[in-house]
């Protein structure tokens, strides 16, 4: 079945080569980082996590969002999703792989990665994040392989896979909850110290992930014989609309708590994000960009007449994805470090090597998705 990914036209192979090139550039800069240390990044003593960890957080969300097609189909019999659950599961596999790479490139001593297993530390949330992410990868890889293989052979899927699929639903929620716990259990990091961090993460995940899936479905329809169907894509649009509304609502809740209570620590965290501190604009342009894009997208998604127009839906999906990428893939994590425990306002911006490594990991995810979806399209076309 895997050989299906190896047959393709010129366009397909040029795309694959392009991704491989990006991966090569990323690898080159990663080797530089290995040699010189994380000093070649924009990280500092005060802002000690940056785009690697932020992107990790964002893509855990993308991975978890597979549940937004799996759950409606298997628990509520939403038949339109029948054709695309596999797309969600495969997207989850690619996203979790990216997450693992983002964690790996962030490590100062990557050769010691096995220490996490050799000295399992139950009171560290990072240990549990590793457990939940690898479990999720295993579940989705199993489900996707078994389902696709059954389709390929033209036989019904074995009965035992159903409970595994059902298990993937709470497991998806768990990966993003544990990821939120990484941050919101820390004393003194006021931006993260909020009980609704996990719900916020889930809401933004369930908006960004399905938005990406909409775009992938539209792309598949244009480029291949695979059509997810108008109805499925429309339903995904509804999912994105609700999740985005919840996400913005949660953000407003946070702002109310901070601004009305006037507790300085809580205000400073948001002040830095949206207005900057001590003359450092910092993340403000990025965060306002995120808000503006998010609100425009939400309006487009909430009005049924607009949402049903596929061009508008596609645009809204792009806006949602970019908006949340800015907020969660950068602002949420970097913002947690400013001001520092000693009140320092230290700016952070990724350096060129950092961007190249990030792009290399995106390309890796893109390559996986390309191969996976190629197989799906080929299997479906054969039937």
């Amino acid at each position, binding site marked *: 079945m895997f050989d299906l990914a190896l047959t393709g036209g010129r366009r397909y192979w040029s795309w694959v080569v392009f991704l491989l090139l990006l991966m090569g550039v990323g690898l080159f800069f990663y080797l530089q980082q290995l040699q010189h*240390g994380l000093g070649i990044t924009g990280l*500092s003593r005060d802002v000690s996590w940056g785009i690697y960890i932020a992107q990790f957080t964002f893509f855990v969300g993308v991975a978890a969002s597979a549940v937004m097609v799996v759950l409606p189909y298997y628990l509520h019999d939403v038949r339109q999703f029948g054709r695309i659950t596999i797309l969600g599961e495969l997207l989850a596999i690619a996203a979790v792989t990216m997450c693992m790479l983002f964690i790996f490139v962030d490590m100062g001593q990557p050769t*010691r990665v096995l220490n996490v297993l050799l000295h399992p*530390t139950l009171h560290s949330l990072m240990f549990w994040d590793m457990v939940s992410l690898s479990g999720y990868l295993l579940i989705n890889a199993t489900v996707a392989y078994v389902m696709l293989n059954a389709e390929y052979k033209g036989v019904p899927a074995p009965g035992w896979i159903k409970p595994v699929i059902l298990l993937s639903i709470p497991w998806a929620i768990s990966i993003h909850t544990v990821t939120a716990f990484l941050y919101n259990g820390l*004393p003194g990091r006021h931006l993260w110290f909020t009980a609704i961090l996990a719900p916020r993460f889930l809401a933004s995940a369930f908006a960004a992930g399905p938005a990406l899936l909409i775009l992938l479905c539209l792309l598949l329809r244009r480029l291949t014989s695979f059509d997810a169907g108008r109805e499925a894509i429309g339903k995904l649009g509804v999912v994105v609309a609700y999740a985005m509304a919840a996400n913005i609502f949660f953000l407003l809740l946070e702002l109310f708590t901070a601004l009305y209570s006037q507790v300085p620590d809580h205000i400073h965290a948001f002040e830095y994000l949206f207005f900057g501190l001590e003359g450092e604009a910092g993340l403000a342009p990025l965060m306002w960009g995120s808000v503006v894009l998010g609100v425009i997208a939400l309006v487009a998604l909430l009005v049924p007449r607009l949402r049903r127009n596929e061009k508008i839906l596609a645009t809204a999906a792009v806006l949602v994805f970019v908006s949340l990428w800015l907020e969660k893939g950068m602002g949420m994590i970097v913002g947690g470090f400013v001001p520092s425990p000693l009140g320092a306002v230290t700016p952070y911006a990724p350096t060129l090597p950092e961007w190249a490594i990030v792009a290399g990991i995106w390309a890796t995810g893109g390559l996986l998705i390309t191969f996976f979806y190629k197989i799906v399209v080929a299997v479906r076309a054969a039937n």
Partner: protein
Amino acid sequence: MKVTRKDFLRIAAGSVVAAGTGTLVHALSGSAPATAATVGESKQRWGMVIDLRQCRQQGECDQCIRACHQTHNVPEVPNPAHEVKWIWNEPFAKVFPFQQSEYTRQADGGTLPVLCNHCASPSCVRVCPTKATWKRGDGIVMMDYHRCIGCRYCMAACPYGSRSFNYVDPRPHLRQVNPEVPTRSAGVVEKCDFCTARLAKGELPACVEACPQGAMVFGDLNDESSPVRQLLAERYSVQRQPHLGCGPSIFYLV
């Protein structure tokens, strides 16, 4: 957390260094010598009292800092973003942001030394995925540079900014090397270790010894007759951010 704390105590009980510090508490306080077992049961808790009145009298002073950084091979990395520091000076208003207002004289209270607080309930230890940072039976929060994977989770978790990461190879940035203390490699976290190596030899921490004013007093917080406890009983003291629940072992006399 109870169980894990006990785990650390057990590790500490077996450690030779911990036994060594038992001798010191004996020397300092005159109490009965602590056996390895009683050390493991956390008879001691090392702590420090810093008298800001004394400290301020010295004006712009960095003798404790220099002594510490020389003793421990702390590099002088030129790029401030990659700075490594175990003890350093900070303005009063930054260290105690909620202890001052525009009307109080603390507002221009000069600078004061800050270092790892060797917390009773250290969040850095709680989050570390490899136990590369752990708390000994005598309260000292330690680092194992050979186990640390450089994930920097402990830096996110420490609410005092006490930890430094080696963003670059520190060795080229050492003026001279103290052969008794290991140098570090790039990619690991480090911080103050309360001079465990000196304690084991029955010596006081380097910063305490270096202070020309005697502003830093070191001793066992669990021993009522220790000099630190006497100072705490006599004078008004504060800890950094006590409301966060970490339980700092460093006290400041204001």
